[in-house]
């Protein structure tokens, strides 16, 4: 029980953000209207994705240092979980964009960057499936993961800032904090981010343990 406090906290936070996010008062803004509530669901997906990809790259580095299979399994399950969060983030963003910007895929650098980052991690899974031998697969995919991570950082954090973007905080647009995120929204937004990060780590943890059990069963 003492080790599970973060799972309970994460579940409570996510439940809170769903209930409070749909019920609490939000500022009335033009164009956004009530769709501003999507902030509690769309943005935490990206936070969770970035955190879980960072977990993946850290474990890839640890794999190369130790050659312990455990770290490879954590890395691959982190990438799988991150892909799910990336897809949900893209989908929720597309729905939101359809209502506020007029089309599900406006030509926005952040959208394109997120899609390319997702392609990068899909390439990682293809690379894994093309290799049969377990140790070789673990090593080569760890190398590709570490190699592509800095490029993903450039893609998601540097490139959108160089051009105009519809997203807040990019290309001269004022950031969230400037005017539209009042204290009421922060009260829901921050727990939502922490909660979804916790849920992502939890999903990864469960999948990692399932993999370990499967491997054990297959060895006999």
């Amino acid at each position, binding site marked *: 029980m003492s080790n599970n406090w973060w799972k309970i906290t994460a579940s409570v936070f996510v439940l809170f953000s769903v209930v409070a996010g749909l019920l609490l008062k939000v500022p009335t803004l033009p164009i956004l209207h009530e769709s501003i509530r999507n902030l509690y669901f769309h943005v935490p997906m990206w936070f969770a994705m970035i955190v879980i990809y960072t977990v993946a790259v850290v474990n890839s580095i640890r794999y190369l240092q130790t050659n312990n299979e455990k770290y490879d399994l954590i890395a691959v399950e982190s990438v799988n979980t991150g892909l799910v969060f990336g897809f949900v983030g893209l989908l929720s963003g597309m729905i939101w964009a359809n209502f506020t910007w007029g089309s599900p895929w406006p030509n926005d650098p952040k959208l394109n960057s997120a899609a390319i980052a997702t392609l*990068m991690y899909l390439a990682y899974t*293809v690379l894994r499936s093309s290799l049969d031998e377990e140790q070789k697969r673990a090593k080569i995919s760890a190398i590709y993961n570490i190699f592509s991570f800095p490029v993903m950082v450039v893609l998601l954090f540097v490139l959108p800032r*160089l051009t105009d973007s519809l997203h807040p905080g990019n290309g001269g647009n004022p950031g969230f904090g400037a005017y539209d995120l009042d204290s009421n929204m922060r009260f829901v937004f921050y727990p939502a981010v922490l909660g979804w990060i916790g849920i992502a780590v939890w999903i990864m943890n469960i999948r990692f343990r399932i993999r370990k059990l499967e491997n054990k069963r297959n060895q006999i």
Partner: protein
Amino acid sequence: MNLYPQIKYLLKKEIVLEWRSKYALNGILLYVVSTVFVCYLSFRTTPPLVWNALFWIIMLFAAINAISKSFVQESKGRLLYYYQIASPQAIIIAKIIYNMLLMILMSVIALFFYSIVFQNNVGDKLLYFGAVMLGAISFSSVFTMISAIASKANNNGTLMAILSFPVIIPVIILIIKLSKNAMDGLDRSVSLDEIGVLTAINLIVITVSLLLFPYLWRD
């Protein structure tokens, strides 16, 4: 042995080997020239935006074809021999430098031929040439490591493309923007951002390759 003489010997070996057969060089040159010609026959005239984008797409595919050979060509025995006598860092640096030279040569010829066949006005010729050089260098630094990774996995052709496209897209976006600035003849201070980020990407990629290659070559 010291790192610097190792790099020098390996680089010399690459160039001598290439010069003897001239297979890759001629093959790639013919590839570029015929692709440009096919594009000319299908487009005839192009608006400036298409002219720029088309050039970089031709360069992208030529680069993938040229650099994907760099590790496959070597036989397994020869690779084992290198690993006995040279440090892995020296091998990857020599490969990157050799690919840079190859790509620079290729892109100069491609640019020359392309601008003869397609008439177009480039505002700032020197900056455009600089952008082409920077593009050639970025392509070779990114693709060398990817080709090393792909050569370790069995089915090479598709894997090389799949692995390299997501990594090269940020570079391509920046390069196309930089060369578009040069075409429009904008003031050079406008392009400093792109040049800075491209240089940073190159430095990061080369550093990461140096750190990772020692893990890769051991089977």
